[in-house]
């Protein structure tokens, strides 16, 4: 839930999603769900010469499991808060028997 919670705050921000097939897509984050599936708008492929077929695509839905990295806009990430959130997540009384 930490990452879901985190990505929720990035809605409306430009991000670059790097996929496991080496495709890197820059776009405005529209929404994200608990599986970290990502919806992007106004997308632009980073290496357009290699992927000309993506030129016509304006928005996309990315399955969370194919994402390798997401490049974030640094000003909209509160690292101290993120650390706290991680601490809280760890402290949670083993929810549903989770270790």
């Amino acid at each position: 839930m930490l990452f879901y919670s985190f990505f929720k705050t990035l809605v409306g921000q430009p991000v670059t999603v790097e996929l496991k097939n080496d495709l890197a897509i820059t776009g405005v984050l529209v929404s994200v769900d608990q599986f970290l599936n990502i919806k992007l708008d106004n997308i632009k492929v980073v290496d357009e010469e290699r992927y000309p077929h993506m030129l016509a695509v304006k928005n996309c839905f990315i399955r969370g499991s194919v994402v390798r990295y997401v490049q974030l806009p640094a000003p909209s990430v509160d690292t101290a808060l993120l650390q706290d959130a991680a601490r809280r997540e760890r402290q949670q009384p083993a929810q549903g028997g989770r270790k």
Partner: protein
Amino acid sequence: MSDFFGFNTVMPGRPGSRKVMLNPDEQQELDRQVQKYALETGEDFEIYDYGETYDNLADGLEETRDDLNDETFGGTGAGTDFDFASNTRQIAPALKKEEELYIKQNEHVGVRRSSFASLWENDASAQQDSYKNGLPEPSQAASSIWGSFGNTTVKGMDAGGRNTGFVHDPVFGVGTFALSRPSTFGNQPSLEEIEAQLLRTAGTQPQIPAQQERKMMSLEEVEAALMSINGGRPIYTESVIAEQQAKQARLEKRRAERLAKQAEIAKHNGLMTQSDKDFINRIQISQLVTDDPYADDFYCQVYTALRNRHLQQMGIPGSMMDSGHPDNRRRGNGRTEQRMQQQVQRIVSDAKRNPKRTNVTVEGALGKIAVNSVLNPRQLLQVSKRGSTNDVLAGNLPKPPSPGPVSTKSHTVLGWIENVYTCVLALEQMRRQQPPPPRPGEEELAREVIQQWNEEYGELARKMWRELRITVPISIVHPHPFISILNYSKGKKVIPRVLRHLLPEQILTLLTMLVANFDSLNVCKSEIYADVEGNQEIELFMNTIVPPLLGFVSEAPFRIVVGLLALFIERNNMIWVARSRPGLAFLTLFLTRAEILKQGHSNYPIPDEREIEQWNELYNRLFSQLQTHFAALFMPKATMAEDVHVWRFLAAMAVGASVEQQHVLVTEVREQVLDNVIAAQTSRSAPEKAAQRIGNVNLFLHALGLDASQVTVPAM
């Protein structure tokens, strides 16, 4: 005999009985042929020869008195009521007209409605063909009405072709169709007519070309109509036709595609009922729903809260929450939203009632069924928990810092810091859930709640205090545990948050401990200036720890300031400490505060004689320790921005100094003053940099009652 119930019974070509009509020659010839045939076949024809065996009894019958027939069979004949064929013949033209009208109507509609068109296709096309040949064919009308007689039509035609007028032949007695043929169209049926008939009555094979022809005709007609509408001119331009056709085809194709797509989608319409949809929604939402948003959605909650506060400070109404959930905003009408909210509430209460289980054991099943969720994902790694359980135990049981030797290994210290964080987070969470101020009428209840909250809060704060390990006696371990905590950047970062939950005397203890062990801080070590990381640490110390303590000291009474400075000088090597920025900052802090209190600028009374005496003694000690080292406070290669704290300290020293001490100060830093003034006066540096240099120098010179402009640059 010629009239049987009004029907003409005369057979064509055989007018009369054979016996009567045959002359003796013919009779003989016939007999001869019969005999010949009998010889050939071996048949005994004699038995059929009634001539010999016939006893002529019939001759005895009364053949006369036919005039009584009328009496026997009734009056003046049977009339013609039952003569259906002639009746039909009379109304045949009217029927035909009706039929034509109907076909025409269908032709207009039929172009589009292929299903009907195919029903009427054969007849319509045949009809049209016959129109073209100028042969209006009533039989068409009749045949389509009496459709079941289709097979007889051809026979009837053949027969009717040779017979003019009515057909009375009993051999072809059932030829109703032929009978219906009006005598007015007694001419031979044309080839085309017969072909059309054949087409209609034959199997499916010949039908298909006729149908296709029909369809193509209609398309051409449509195009022609379009052309005439568009241009109003003849449609003989090839290119225009092609273009129009292509356009038409495109439109037609697109429309068809759209319709096909719609149909494709529409076939799934209504597949799910509302309760199905609700069920799916529940499943999806239940993954995300939580009764404690601060626990499961901590980052988002706090982040938006912080952002909103920040925006409000900037005068922008906080709307982060809205932009954070665009789908909420987009979500349709209020009723749906309300229903969703109700569902969410129900899910939350359900979740509270039955806590989630990791696995279910179903009776009869082999093994357990794992129930995975977002909160409880399938475990992919099995890590040995031996080490972590010890940590958890240590965290859960906050053992009071033991007086014995305490390990200061890095992971131990990091563990302490994490424990502090845990407490801080819990405290902050409690702050957020602080009970609201009592409403009128509920004071008693509210007071109880508040008291309970205060107790819990105090307990947690004490726990945090223990975790900070400030009260561990000095000089058992070196460095002191608290200083060890401060040597980590995350230890530094937690201090401002810790201070918010501490009582004033606890802060004083903390400050005392810090001051007493100051030179064991890593930021106090001079070699730390060498690398970037060290500078970051110093920056962090100056930004996190100094400001809140500065705030505390600037409220402190004279007695405490004196005590702290005494401890500072007592326990640390001043030359060492003063060469670090944090050390110098603390010294400046104490000096300025003492000076302010001495001059009586704050709420505290002016310190009495004895306290002033103590202070002067302390000051003199500090001055004598630092004497001959003032110039060394300046960083060897520091930029002037980094020098400002040194000048500030010198200013603080100068304010409290005696005349001799001031003299010593000026003598020692004279070089730096001159350097700065010369650097500012030469045109090499930018104006703002020069102004800053002069400003720095003036910090110190003003404290002495001087100004940079009074400095005379000696001729070089």
